[in-house]
């Protein structure tokens, strides 16, 4: 616990701050001294590795000895863009987007709007329960759902069988159903988060806007379109960009449920990246995928934020 306080740098400043000449120098150095520890840690364990990712992505490397690094230019990127496996993994991420982004937004928006319209009391009471899945680790969510969806003794299929469905799908083990099932698990984890954000957002919309709309004779849908949705633009931007990023980086839940299977039906970019680097020992190739993933994430989230900001002006 020695680095807990790290007072050496700055307390020194305080103690020596008496003589006038030194003081002006130290006073000028002060902000830098306060920043130093944060910048050092951030640089060593974040900036340097990110630079490393970019650098290694231009090499062919098995990860064994640093001397084995061989510069190959953009070969890894060419390999990725011409590989079926890469495009399939990317496609799986894209399939997850409506499940991770649109579905929970709709599921969260509807009750939020109704609660506001009918001026329900105790809406806060529901928040805790709804929000709970969102704070849980992805692995836990994966492990829990894997059991619930177990084709032989999981609660879902035994209930379905009791209701008369002779042969329900094996969900996470089924070639057709695996990916949508993962998507639904993602939607399940996120809808409460959307609801909570939307409820808070709607409360901030000035009431006169609603009154004006009502005086104009606006119905439910009209009011939603003209007042509520524009008023929730900021919350929408957050929900969409956050969940979009979750869809692109999806890893934890998938690792714990299907690990990419059956076949490679649920293999997503993050999983493909880790497998390439550490199981196939193609570290250069793995980092190239990491770069693609990061750039994609950045571009799409900027796009979403743009989309919602443009309407503002």
């Amino acid at each position: 616990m020695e680095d807990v306080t790290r007072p050496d740098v700055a307390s020194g400043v305080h103690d020596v701050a008496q003589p006038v000449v030194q003081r002006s120098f130290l006073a000028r150095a002060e902000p830098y001294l306060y920043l130093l520890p944060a910048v050092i840690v951030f640089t060593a364990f974040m900036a340097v590795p990110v630079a490393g990712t970019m650098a290694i992505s231009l090499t062919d490397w098995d990860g064994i000895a640093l001397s084995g690094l061989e510069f190959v230019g953009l070969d890894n990127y060419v390999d990725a863009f011409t590989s079926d496996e890469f495009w399939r993994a990317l496609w799986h991420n894209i399939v997850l987007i409506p499940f991770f982004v649109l579905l929970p937004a709709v599921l969260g928006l509807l009750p939020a709007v109704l609660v506001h319209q009918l001026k329900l009391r105790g809406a806060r009471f529901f928040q805790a329960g709804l929000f709970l899945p969102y704070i849980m680790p992805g692995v836990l969510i994966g492990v829990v759902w894997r059991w619930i969806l177990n084709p032989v003794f999981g609660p879902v299929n035994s209930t379905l069988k009791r209701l008369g469905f002779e042969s329900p799908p094996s969900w996470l083990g089924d070639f057709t159903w695996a990916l949508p099932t993962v998507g639904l698990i993602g939607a399940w984890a996120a809808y409460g988060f959307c609801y909570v954000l939307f409820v808070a957002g709607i409360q901030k919309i000035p009431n006169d806007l609603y009154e004006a709309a009502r005086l104009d004779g606006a119905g439910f849908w009209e009011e939603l379109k003209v007042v509520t949705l524009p008023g929730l633009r900021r919350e929408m931007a957050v929900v969409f960009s956050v969940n979009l990023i979750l869809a692109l980086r999806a890893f934890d839940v998938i690792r714990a449920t299907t690990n990419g299977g059956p076949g490679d039906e649920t293999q997503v970019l993050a999983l493909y990246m880790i497998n390439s680097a550490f199981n196939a020992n193609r570290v250069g190739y793995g980092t190239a995928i990491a770069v693609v993933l990061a750039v994609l994430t950045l571009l799409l989230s900027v796009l979403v934020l743009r989309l919602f900001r443009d309407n503002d002006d």
Partner: protein
Amino acid sequence: MIRRLPVYLLLMLGVVVAVVPFLITILASLKTTVELVQGVFSLPEEPQWDNYRRAWVDGNFDRFFINSLVVAFGVVVPSLVLSCMSGYAFARYRFRGKSAIFIYLLLGLVVPLQALVIPLFYLMREMGLLDSLWALILPQIAMSMSFGTLLMREAFSGVPGEIVEASVLDGAGSWRVLWEIMFPLARPFVGTLSLMFFIWTWNEFLLPLVVNVDPTFQTLPVGLLFFQQRWTSDIPVTAAGATIIFLPLTVVFLLFQRQMIEGLTQGAIKG
């Protein structure tokens, strides 16, 4: 009232769907394998506490739990201290390169862990830190700097200048102003930030999965994965392991619900 009832029911349904998977997991953790298939909501004849003993002892959950606690404290406390210091620098000083350094630190908000985890493995290997708790603590402090700096700068900017000037006139140095004046005033922010750091660290999965192979240095999420792979067919014990993870988290959540929801919806920007 008649129109309200369906909406209440809808909300209730939403809560039930969100919470039931956890409840039936608790139930499953107290059953025998035979009782498990007899009905989801059926109560066990006699609670099988032994499932917890097996998860805790045979499944090494005691180890994972302690590691998770050590890593959480090892990340949260230093991250808070460093965030306060850097946030203070940005809130209270004018200096050359201020905005450049600020942007540099904020870049961490848009970089996903996936973009650095592979080189992190080799960096840790070169430093001889693979298979140690340091390999989990150091990178996660680094990853906390962006959001921490941003939030603490905001917190400290909100402290009225007169309060600071008054204490400087009293002869307080900047270090004392930070910890004795500013820090107590920013307590709500500090609380939210610690909760965020805690949740992020407690739930982190990819980093420990990559940098630690030795189970001795694993935290709970990866531990649960190992566990599931080893006891695929023993659902009650796996359910007990899962419960050991989510029950403490649920308690923390219920205790600090308001700050946590606030923080997570704000911190949602932490891409």
